[in-house]
């Protein structure tokens, strides 16, 4: 068994551990009866956090073994970076847990980490050689610090989500309720992406096309999902596959659009099934679980996460980034889309802190802002890497 296999197994073990820990955290907050509920929460909570730590150690094992195998920090492509991001979120959660001992955080933070790792697993996970610009120890330093900062900032979104779940009346129609349910629907769409990818992979679906790209060169492309959208001037090469329904202009990557389409279809079907079977909104299902949380404490946890994460993010995503850019390209700042979005993230959290300090945006407003911040982080991870072309794009 080679090191890279061991690495894969360790990641799998971590994934399972996070799943189990989520259920345990659920158990820790679920107990409603007055009989020894506190002790039970204590006991279940202890087991849950232990399993979480085992999962984290196992994932650290994955990280280190892969590092040894590839010879560079495993943060150099979409699979590696996103997996590490999931790991850091678990790490950040553990840090905040030991500061505040609020079990419900685990019940939300771990599923988010699980989804992120599952999302990562949908990308090719083989080892890629490093291009010259990435051959630097700043790859390790800059990427890990930036991801760590983002993960700690993500915990504020976790706290914000729990805050809103408790604070917003799920029985009454309101804009707050709509948007909160929308966020949960988005989470289900991510599940839809994972389920659709796995389904078509299990079917071994493959369809090859030629097309003309925006520089007017003829290229080839392989779809792993039935092509709903066709590339510019496509020609089908594989027999017995679905013909695309619509042809796209050259600047739109129809393959990615197809992936988004299928994720949307699968996610929406799953969401509708949940609604039909339970006859309730997802908020209504989650709300009873968060009834016992103390809102001012959650608000403080959210704020504290931003306070801890912001300096780390500034250091990793701006300062270290500038030092490396200076060394690799001779300019510390080049308005590359990833750089710009790191700056946008930074500006956003700066606005968050100022609004909170001086305008008294606390509680519900602060919780919404934390969610918007996390949305920007995800945008920077997904859209900027995969859609907007630049020096940092992975695909």
């Amino acid at each position: 068994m080679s090191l890279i296999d061991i690495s894969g197994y360790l990641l799998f073990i971590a994934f399972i551990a996070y799943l189990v820990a989520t259920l345990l955290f659920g158990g820790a907050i679920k107990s409603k009866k007055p009989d020894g509920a506190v002790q039970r929460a204590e006991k279940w909570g202890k087991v849950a956090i232990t399993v979480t730590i085992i999962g984290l150690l196992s994932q650290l094992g994955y990280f280190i073994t892969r590092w040894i195998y590839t010879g560079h920090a495993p943060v150099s492509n979409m699979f590696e970076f996103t997996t590490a991001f999931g790991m850091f979120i678990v790490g950040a959660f553990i840090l905040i847990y030991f500061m505040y001992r609020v079990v419900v955080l685990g019940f939300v933070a771990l599923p988010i980490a699980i989804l992120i790792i599952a999302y990562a697993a949908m990308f090719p996970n083989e080892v890629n050689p490093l291009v010259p610009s990435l051959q630097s120890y700043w790859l390790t330093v800059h990427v890990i610090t930036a991801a760590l900062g983002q993960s700690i900032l993500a915990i504020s979104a976790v706290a914000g989500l729990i805050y809103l779940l408790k604070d917003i009346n799920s029985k009454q129609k309101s804009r707050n309720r709509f948007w909160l349910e929308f966020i949960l629907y988005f989470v289900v769409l991510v599940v839809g992406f994972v389920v659709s990818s796995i389904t078509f992979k299990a079917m071994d679906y493959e369809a090859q096309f030629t097309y003309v790209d925006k520089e007017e060169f003829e290229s080839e492309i392989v779809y792993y999902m039935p092509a709903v959208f066709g590339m510019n001037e496509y020609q089908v090469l594989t027999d017995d596959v679905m013909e695309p329904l619509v042809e796209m202009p050259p600047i739109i990557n129809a393959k990615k659009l197809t992936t988004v389409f299928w994720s949307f279809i699968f996610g929406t079907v799953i969401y509708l099934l949940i609604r039909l079977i339970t006859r309730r909104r997802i908020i209504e299902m989650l709300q009873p679980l968060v009834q016992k949380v103390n809102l001012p404490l959650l608000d403080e946890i959210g704020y504290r996460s931003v306070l801890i994460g912001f300096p780390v993010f500034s250091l990793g995503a701006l300062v270290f980034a500038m030092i490396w850019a200076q060394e690799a390209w001779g300019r510390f700042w080049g308005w590359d889309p990833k750089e710009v979005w790191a700056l946008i993230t930074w500006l956003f959290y700066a606005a968050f802190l100022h609004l909170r300090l001086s305008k008294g945006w606390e509680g519900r407003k602060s919780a919404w802002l934390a969610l918007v911040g996390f949305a920007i982080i995800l945008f920077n991870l997904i859209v900027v890497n995969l859609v907007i072309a630049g020096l940092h794009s992975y695909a």
Partner: protein
Amino acid sequence: MMEKIICVCKHENPVGTKICANCGRPLTEEEQNSKVLDMKYDGSAIRSKTYNKSIVDKIWNFFSSVKVGVSLIIITLVAASIGTIFPQEFYVSAGTELERELYYEKTYGSLGKLYYSLGLADIYSSWWFQVLVGMLGISIIVASLDRGLPLYKSLKNQRVKRHESFMKRQRVIAEGAITEGDSARTLDLIEDKMKNLKYKVRREGNALLAERGRFARSGPYINHVGLIIFLLGVMFRLLPGFYVDEAMWIREGETRAVPGMDGYFLENEKFILETYDNDPTESQKQQGVNVVAKNYQTNVKLYKQSEDAVAGQSDNLELVQDYSIRVNHPLQQEGYSFYQMDFRLNELKEMRFSLTNKETGESLGPVNIDLTNPQKEYVIDDQTKVALLGYYPDFSGFENGEPQTKTPTPNNPAFIFKMITPEKPDGEVSFVAIQQTIEPNGDNAYKMAFQGVETRNMSGLTVHKDRTIPILAIGGFIFLLGVAIGSYWSHRRVWVQQLDDGTIMLAAHTNKNWFTIKKDIDAVTEYAHLPKYVDQLDVEEQNEKEGDNTL
């Protein structure tokens, strides 16, 4: 003519003060009616909240407003994001303005054309974006002065004893008799415990003030100073001599003067491109990449002209450095750095011909033409020579019968030869380009038979000097220091008073992390047997919830 507000305690406060700096009594009606005091800037007078008459006041108030500051941040953020919709024009290789416009239109359609014509393709250099950043800078300075100075003064002159109306309006308060023990020792016990918790403790009669981490309040002001230094550093770049950014193309074997760096010459010994020999991986296939580059490297020698040499001449060179420039490993010399940025492989260096008799195929001799330095005439012997009448390094066709060259780079060389041979002493003219020969005077007896080419690589380097880097580094460091101080430490204060009957009144305030200060108060409550404290905001929430239930 500073007006004063005179408090009941006879202390004179500047106009605009919300909480008396001496005793802590709320001075404004708003504060008097509130349950928990607004402790921002400790209730001291803020200039922007006090004066609003003259134009200076108005400008000052505009820039010091947090609302304006946050709005500026949000506008900058949105503008920055717009700049990422399509690639910025400096990432587009098209040369002229017209070519760029066409590129945007062709690649991104009418939206692209609009994007370019609105100037969004160069948004970060636009005057309004820079004005925006400038206003943000001013806002940072004004807001910091506006609030930082009064806060500093008020924290420096803190009194130990505060009025009851101040104590009762804090968020965390406790009141009542001690739960056990001798009340005469209570203040001593509190002092012990608070000192133990690393608080600084001051006492004044029956009052006690325990304070910890006051320096945390300076964090925001320190990080703002860092940001301002950073922005100034960026502006210094515009001053002459602070910033050099030159591109240089240098061929293997060439020695060239370094642009922007007087008296220095760089020799390109060799350019090396290495690739990985792995089989394409899944993601490489997805991206349509067959080979991945492993290394871009230029082996160079950097020379300096000796002191007495004539400027611009490349003799009397002293070797300064022998270095291999690679990506991430620039060559550095006296504040200048040389970066590996680009390359061109297999540029034509020399073309080899042989002067050949068409009929017999007999060669009279070779003619080798150095494409960057062609000669007027190539002599084979007394009666045999080839004159070069015309040289077109990047031949692009004829115009009015004249051959044209697109660029001075030998990408597609073409020649007009005059071949002088014993047989044809007057010479025969021939136009020779790659895969093309034209004989203007009819059928020649001789031809320039193509024998081969020699190529070499060319390396694209960037020469950089940026004297603002140390300023930026200092600014960045101060910023990080300030952010860390402001984020990782909190300013905690606990006021205690023992009334004549021995009962205790306690109030606590922190600028953040109430959870932590409550842990401290828990500890001191247990140690000194104090009455249980309440968090007035928690109580408020409880009341609200109860209110909900009755509906």
